[in-house]
């Protein structure tokens, strides 16, 4: 018997799989992009929601993996997905290890500022040094493929293939994180969030656990960065901008902290809000000031929706159950 959470996840996956049948190129591209953000939101959920570490630097892992995907691709030939994806993830995880090792020495509000500052450091590395191609960024001319012998299984040049690869990655990441939450390691992370002192007293050395969570989170954000770079065919320093870190943080809060479904829901809600406020049909000339609407929504949701969208569903359920109990008695 499936409970309502598993049913909602299955239905969501089904809807995403069928989406390209009912929409055109724009819809496919938009949802593919949103799913990529959902992957990054899931990676941040592991740090913020599961472990209780408020990291404001997720864009660094995302962007560095994107740059790695472009820089490591051979010129004029397509790379194999089999090694390019793990390599890009490794670059992101390596920076996450560096960032985690230093910022985990601090806590609380310090931690937020330090992660933000280290993400900004990565931004300046790709922005200022000759490595990154400056403000204009760099192009990926030939996209990677998955080939077996001479048979090309997946050619990411095709938008539809790209869409299903992104969906596959999202499902894989979701499943991996759900399994991780049930493992001994996941329980330890939840324990650190609830009470780190007590975890230490129980004999856990918490630092390595938190550092491992950082590396895993970095690698997952790296999947997102890789997919983004391959989908669009170019990278620029804006991928590492702190506004992206802020946006991803908003996604997981908007969806509901502490739930994997919340992260995905939040990514879609955020994309929807963005499209809404950017729509010239509704807001006319104010559509170019769409960030104003977004900012006000963020403020309102902090003030009135501290448990996110998942929280609304939960409170409805509780109310429905209470109504049912009252009805019976």
């Amino acid at each position, binding site marked *: 018997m499936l409970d309502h959470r598993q049913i909602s996840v299955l239905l969501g996956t089904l809807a995403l799989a069928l989406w390209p049948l009912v929409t055109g190129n724009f819809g496919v591209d938009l949802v593919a992009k949103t799913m990529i953000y959902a992957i990054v939101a899931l990676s941040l959920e592991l740090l913020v929601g599961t472990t209780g570490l*408020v990291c404001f630097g997720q864009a660094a892992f995302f962007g560095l993996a994107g740059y790695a995907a472009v820089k490591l691709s051979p010129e004029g030939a397509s790379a194999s997905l089999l090694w390019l994806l793990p390599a890009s993830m490794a670059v992101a995880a390596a920076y996450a290890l560096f960032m985690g090792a230093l910022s985990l*020495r601090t806590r609380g*509000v*310090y931690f937020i500022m330090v992660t933000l500052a280290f993400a900004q450091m990565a931004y300046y590395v790709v922005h200022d040094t000759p490595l990154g191609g400056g403000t204009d960024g760099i192009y990926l001319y030939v996209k990677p493929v998955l080939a077996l012998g001479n048979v090309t299984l997946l050619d990411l040049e095709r938008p539809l293939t790209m869409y299903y690869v992104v969906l596959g990655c999202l499902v894989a990441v979701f499943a991996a994180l759900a399994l991780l939450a049930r493992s001994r390691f996941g329980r330890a992370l939840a324990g650190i969030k609830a009470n780190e002192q007590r975890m230490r007293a129980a004999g856990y050395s918490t630092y390595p656990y938190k550092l491992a969570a950082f590396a895993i989170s970095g690698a997952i954000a790296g999947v997102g960065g890789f997919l983004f770079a391959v989908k669009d065919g170019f990278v620029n320093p804006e991928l590492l901008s702190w506004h992206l870190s802020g946006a991803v943080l908003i996604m997981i809060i908007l969806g509901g902290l502490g739930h994997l479904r919340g992260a995905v829901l939040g990514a879609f809600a955020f994309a929807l809000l963005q499209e809404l406020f950017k729509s010239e049909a509704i807001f006319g000339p104010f559509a170019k*000031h769409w960030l104003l609407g977004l900012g006000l929504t*963020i*403020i309102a949701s*902090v003030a009135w929706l*501290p448990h996110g969208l998942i929280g609304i569903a939960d409170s409805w359920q509780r109310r429905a159950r209470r109504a049912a109990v009252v009805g019976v008695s």
Partner: protein
Amino acid sequence: MTLSWFLVQCLNSLQYGLLLFLVASGLTLIFGIMGVINLAHGSFYMIGAYMAYALAPLVNATLGGGFFTTLMIGLVLAVALGYVLEWAFFSFLYEREHLQQVLMTYGLILVFEELRSILVGDDVHGVAPPPWLAGSVPLGDLMTYPVYNLFISAVCLLLALGMWFVLARTRLGMTIRAGSTNREMVQSLGIDIQFLYRVVFAAGVALAVLAGMVAAPASSVYPGMGNQVLIICFVVVVIGGIGSIRGALLAALLIGFVDTFGKVLFQQAAGVLVYVLMALILLWKPDGLFKAS
């Protein structure tokens, strides 16, 4: 590399560092006393710079001009802005988690930035320094140094001294220091902590706005200028130690020198150097140079 070249770079470093101190001290004060992390603090710097740009013609037309008149009007507006913002947005953040403070103030950044775009547009502007500060002084045989930049350093130094005096020597400063160590105790002694918070917040906003207004003639006024300052100010606060004004001063000067000399000596790594400095200090002292207890 001559002596006068070195001197000019030192003066630039000093000016940049002192300006950073002005913004960062507000940030660290607000955090130290109210426990609120305020991402929108950089926006106040931006608002100050745009005020200098937008107010000057208005003041010229109505009051017959005057650089100091503009500064004073800006200061009054800044205090009012800080007072209202504390009342409307910050007063219910004190009991919330840092995460929610981060989000709320991030939302405020977007709002301020877009309001600026609607009111003044997205163009880059220059602001002329007042005529009596417009010249430059010769340094050595070939170099000159603008008088206005010396003026910035002087204003910042005066404000830093003033801040030290208020915090260390007055009754208000005493309550502020007490409030940052033990909130409940101060409250139970019959001090209106709500009012104290509002004063501190307004003062922090005023410092950032003033920094922006004073800096505007020396740099250009452009969209997003607040964000750049904000993140560097975080680095200042992390290096100096949260809540420590003394730490903020030292860290701001350190960053001023590292950044200025980095920009002229290693152009390609200039942006990164400040963060490398932060990484090194975190390795050595994770709580910053001066930890306020």
